[in-house]
């Protein structure tokens, strides 16, 4: 662990807003301001804003940029149009997941990949090591070049549109816009299950942009709400639901693996897909009181990788790896929550749907 925690360009804003700050992957980040539940509901019902500047960026450019990314990323990178976005995983040769990431195609030969904070250094080394085989591809670390804000919720696009010089890019697209005078990469993505945008900009411009969007009605939301929001819609969190110990098929991410592109790990993924995984990541709801947490064991085999109280549903939810034979929707589980057996039921993903 680093001796000093890194701070984002918005650190002073968080402190001034009374946020509880925590160490997250070496960064001093806001876990909550007013309260997780309140921030969660603001994103579900209106609009919240998150500082996600701790996430890393890797830029890949040059005539062989596509070839390099096709080798590294599990999805078919050739399918991303200029101005498009794509989700994929980064695998080792054995299929173990190194990271899950969004890649944006900023130009014909220019891509920006957003990494998880905890994996950024490892990802960057992995990219650079493999770039040696592609002399006409350049890999550069963008972590100090970008601040990143996520504005999420049913009113998020409206709030951001009001300060944009041009219509916002649609979902899964990216474009440069002037927002309140700042030069911003606007991405039609997010990780909450709501409409919204993610904004990448010069860290020096981030505080004024944050202030303007907050002034227009976005509630500052911390990593606590980000976690409950993503878990309700069953989005993976690296370090919980994804790790080098398991592959993308086990994690239910076969949809973003295109083995024919021959990415690193493709053969291992192909073999698991053909044979069927031994374990599957399932979503569950606790039946009754109690909240399962990461690491809780499932009676008869399996382990909880994420667990929380769902603010939208009002009960304990989570995701767990269970033996494939016991992974069907409706299967009843017993989870050992610190010595108390809590009954749970495997549910379809996502656990939360709009209007449910």
């Amino acid at each position: 662990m680093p001796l000093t925690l890194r701070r984002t360009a918005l650190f002073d804003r968080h402190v001034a807003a009374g946020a509880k700050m925590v160490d997250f992957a070496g960064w001093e980040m806001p876990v909550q301001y007013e309260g997780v539940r309140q921030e969660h509901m603001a994103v579900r019902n209106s609009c919240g804003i998150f500082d996600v500047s701790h996430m890393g960026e890797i830029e890949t450019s040059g005539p062989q940029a596509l070839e390099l990314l096709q080798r590294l990323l599990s999805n078919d990178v050739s399918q991303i149009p200029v101005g498009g976005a794509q989700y994929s995983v980064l695998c080792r040769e054995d299929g173990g997941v190194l990271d899950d990431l969004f890649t944006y195609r900023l130009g014909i030969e220019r891509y920006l990949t957003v990494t998880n904070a905890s994996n950024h250094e490892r990802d960057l080394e992995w990219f650079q090591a493999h770039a040696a085989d592609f002399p006409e591809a350049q890999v550069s670390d963008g972590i100090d070049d970008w601040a990143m804000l996520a504005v999420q919720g049913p009113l998020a696009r409206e709030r951001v549109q009001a300060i944009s010089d041009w219509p916002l890019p649609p979902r899964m697209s990216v474009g440069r816009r002037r927002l309140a005078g700042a030069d911003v990469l606007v991405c039609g993505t997010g990780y909450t299950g709501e409409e919204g945008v993610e904004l990448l900009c010069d860290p020096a411009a981030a505080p004024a942009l944050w202030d303007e969007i907050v002034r227009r009605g976005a509630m500052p939301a911390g990593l606590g709400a980000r976690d409950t929001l993503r878990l309700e819609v069953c989005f993976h969190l690296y370090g919980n639901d994804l790790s080098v110990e398991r592959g993308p098929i086990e994690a239910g991410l076969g949809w973003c693996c295109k083995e024919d592109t021959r990415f690193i790990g493709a053969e291992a993924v192909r073999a698991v897909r053909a044979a069927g995984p031994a374990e599957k990541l399932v979503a569950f709801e606790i039946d009754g009181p109690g909240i399962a947490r990461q690491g809780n064991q499932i009676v008869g085999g399996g382990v909880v990788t994420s667990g929380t109280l769902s603010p939208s549903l009002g009960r304990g939810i989570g995701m767990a790896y269970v033996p494939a034979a016991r992974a069907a929707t409706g299967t009843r589980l017993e989870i050992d929550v610190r010595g108390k057996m809590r009954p749970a039921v495997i549910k379809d993903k996502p656990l939360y749907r709009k209007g449910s």
Partner: protein
Amino acid sequence: MAQASYPDELLYHPEHDWARIDAADPALATLGITWYAQDALGEVVFFDPPAVGTTLAKDASYAEVESVKAVSDVIAPLSGEIVEVNEALSENPAMINEDPYGEGWLVKVRLSEPSERDSLMDAAAYRATLAG
């Protein structure tokens, strides 16, 4: 309650628990968690009460409170046997945040070693540990 407060009439344990000795019966105490503890936890969403009759050992965990993000042990400031639990918390655990010394009490205990109270801190001493 938004502002830190540590009532003078309570006794405090370093693990952020309080005890109120009954005015009429010095072997009966009400237990709860301090303002500092509930603030550190954030909004409490679940309190799993121990059963009446459970034996408490001073300095050992006797219950759990959970916020959205985390679970935290509740440490017994005194030894004894639980004679009553705050059933209202099952429906409304956020009372622990709103009124940690009143409606947010956790259990009432028949003390087995009433002299243990001498090892607890008064409000001024507890406040001093927080200031450090």
